[in-house]
């Protein structure tokens, strides 16, 4: 993956010489930036391939040259140029610290090159790891995963409805219809409505029913009996059922109103 010299072209012509030191001709800088992943990559190349001794670099020249880059790079890829400048600054710092006489008091200070070497070696390992990851067989290229077809038979689940949702729907109806005022209806009336349906359903099935048969005296309880009675009255009032009695005190019969019985 390392850039080879033949990869590098300047003005269309292959450049056969990579720099022996960190000095890069300004007109070639962009090409170098494209060939290397950054200053660490370039430095690693110089150390590993060109046996560059990082302390052998003429730092004064380098400094002047890099300052010139700043001007040149203002237009293009300033961020990348900055990475290179940072590196040269670091090298200069290392070198200057190496050149200064070490006061005995801080003799234990770590060799500044050690940190740079650690970083270079870590980067080198990452580079190889990246290469390895790139080469590893992957799904879609080296592995094809089974993906046969199946008829998607929907596991049909009817929509769930909670009481809250139902209530919310009803509130919406009320709000929109502004029914609040004329439809004040309490729990009792709701029970009446329910019993109206029950009685109607019963009459629908049985045709005709004796009044007394509609009351379940044994299990109903008084409240329920009253509600049932109110339901029957309401049904009659709304003209949904028909009540007949042959004579006073005889059995009252209820039946669903027939079409021809219209009043």
């Amino acid at each position, binding site marked *: 993956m390392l850039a080879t010299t033949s990869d590098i072209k300047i003005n269309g012509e292959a450049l056969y010489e990579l720099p022996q030191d960190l000095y890069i001709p300004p007109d070639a800088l962009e090409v170098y930036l494209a060939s290397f992943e950054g200053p660490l990559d370039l430095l690693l190349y110089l150390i590993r391939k060109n046996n560059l001794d990082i302390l052998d670099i003429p730092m004064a020249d380098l400094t002047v040259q890099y300052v010139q880059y700043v001007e040149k790079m203002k237009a293009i890829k300033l961020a990348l140029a900055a990475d290179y400048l940072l590196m040269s600054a670091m090298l200069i710092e290392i070198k200057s610290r190496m050149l200064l006489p070490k006061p005995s008091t801080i003799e234990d200070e770590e060799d500044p090159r050690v940190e740079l070497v650690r970083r270079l070696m870590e980067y080198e390992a990452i580079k190889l790891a990246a290469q390895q990851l790139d080469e590893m067989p992957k799904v879609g290229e080296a592995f094809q995963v089974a993906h046969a*077809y199946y*008829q998607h038979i929907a*596991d049909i689940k009817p929509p769930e409805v909670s009481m809250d949702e139902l209530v919310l729907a009803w509130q919406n109806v009320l709000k929109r219809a502004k029914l609040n005022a004329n439809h004040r209806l309490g*729990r009792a009336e*709701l029970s009446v409505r329910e019993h109206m*349906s029950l009685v109607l359903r019963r009459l*629908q099935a049985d045709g005709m029913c004796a009044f007394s048969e509609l009351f379940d005296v044994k299990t109903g309880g008084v409240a329920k009996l009253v509600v049932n009675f109110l339901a029957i009255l309401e049904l009659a009032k709304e003209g949904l059922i028909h009540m007949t009695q042959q004579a006073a005190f005889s059995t009252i019969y209820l039946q669903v109103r027939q079409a021809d019985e219209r009043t």
Partner: protein
Amino acid sequence: MREPENITEMKAILEAALLTAGQPLSLDELLKLFAGRMERATLRMLLDELKQAWEDKSLDLVQVATGYRFQAKPELSAFIARLNPDRQPKYSRAVMETLAIIAYRQPVTRGDIEQIRGVSVNPNIMRQLIERDWIDVVGQREVAGRPSLYATTKHFLDDLNLRSLAELPSFEDFIQDEIAVED
């Protein structure tokens, strides 16, 4: 990479390709597997053999408009569907409001519902609720056209975990809420 030398190897290539394709493969595409070294007739024959070999297995090799594909046997599809349950569908607002009106105002006709909602009620809405066994017809109102009277069923109460309609919040509760909000 060595080209396949016998029928068994060719069938394995075909099978692997069809199982991993994710879409039907045409004869022309399948021929590409063998880099032009196979006759169409041979390919058809191999596909036939493959089809037979899978007859008692978990998938079928079938031919559809755009080519050949493996698909799960119909009786197994229902199990596979369990892996990707469909998202619980929701009833539309119209269905919910219709249901609420029937629950609170039963027995009601479609006309009643239309009058309360102020819009016409799509017959499809009533059908959905009837099919769900949440409402049914309990009679007819004896007016012109004898419209059906709808009411909620016992099954509806069961599904909403109610013992009776009286367990639904009453109107008064809403009205109080309303007042509280307006204050």
